[in-house]
């Protein structure tokens, strides 16, 4: 999948078979030895080398120290939620009701991958329908708000213009009166009210 330029070749594993092990080859064999991946033909000469070489023994101790981090970090198994397998199997068959799924097993499910797959087209359809409905509604409201036809326009003003405005002289004169000092932040709102 991801190969690196200086990968070791598979043949390298067989290099020290039966041959004398050097310090360099011993260092490269130690991880495989601790992982239990060496054949006896490889492990035997390595053991002999380790017996005679304190430096390589030290290197092996370091490898072991590292492995103890992983061994200590391996927590107890995760508790699988009750009914997980049944749920997954049901969803799998519900999401793929083709050749594999018997009709009885293809029960619709909310959520899950299969559910999500079926939900998207439905949501898109509903969104489109809602958009069309909103558009029609907006047009209808607009038409009701405007004078409809010649008769309406010719006969009378819109209702809101027929009602006499109750604006007292006090109100008309009010802009001439200097406004009372207002706390900061409220001024905009108040001036809006006056308008």
């Amino acid at each position: 999948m991801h190969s690196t330029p200086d990968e070791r070749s598979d043949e390298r594993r067989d290099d020290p078979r039966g041959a004398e092990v050097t310090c360099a080859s011993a260092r490269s064999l130690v991880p495989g030895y601790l992982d239990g991946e060496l054949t006896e033909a490889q492990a035997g000469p390595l053991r002999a080398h380790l017996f005679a070489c304190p430096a390589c023994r030290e290197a092996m101790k370091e490898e072991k120290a590292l492995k103890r981090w992983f061994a200590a970090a391996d927590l107890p198994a995760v508790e699988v939620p009750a009914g997980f397998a049944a749920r997954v199997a049901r969803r799998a068959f519900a999401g793929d009701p083709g050749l594999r799924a018997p009709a009885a097993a293809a029960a619709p499910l909310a959520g899950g991958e299969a559910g999500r797959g079926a939900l998207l087209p439905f949501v898109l359809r509903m969104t489109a329908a809602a958009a069309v409905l909103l558009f029609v509604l907006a047009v209808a409201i607009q038409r009701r708000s405007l004078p409809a036809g010649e008769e309406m326009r010719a006969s009378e003003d819109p209702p809101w213009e027929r009602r006499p405005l109750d604006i007292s002289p006090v109100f008309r004169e009010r802009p001439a009166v200097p406004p009372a000092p207002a706390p900061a932040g409220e001024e905009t709102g108040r001036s809006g009210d006056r308008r």
Partner: protein
Amino acid sequence: MGFLVMQPAAHDDTALVRETLGGNPLSFRLLVERYQDRIFGLARHYAQSAVEVEDIVQDTFLKAFRRLDTFQHASSFSTWLHKIAVNTALDFLKRAGRNPVQAVEDPEVLGTAPETAVRIGAPSARLEREEVAAITHRVLEELPEIFRTALILREFEGLTYQEMAETLGISIGTVESRLFRARARFRAALARLYPEYAELD
């Protein structure tokens, strides 16, 4: 009557796969039950909560179901499923934006990165198991994807080099090389993040 017909006739993976493809949900359920512990164990190394773990595992099995007809029996079902699980977990990490190091494109990963020989000691006996686990997983999160996955598959899942090679689609030589580098990087990251465990020459 129908229920009896749906009972799996055999219980090895190959038969269960065949029966699932034939439309028997109970056979697929048995497959899930057989491997759910291992896939949950694998997924927890990539997730940060129980909900995330369950999402990864569920996604893994649903993907496996959809691709079941492509399972060639060239490798074991377990290896095939692990491959899907690893890819699902890595996709999950990418979607969550949790691993900034792009394994394939990163020249430091590809090239001859300076994997200095940092020495670290074994975890102190005074440390609680949970504390060691927290440190180890914190360090693993620092590693590029390919190295983290190599260590998880080997050190926690106990896969052999052959199984790792099949799961990751690489040669055994590459598995060895990747593990060698992964361990060197783990040491370096541990010493950098927790210098109290570095050993000076």
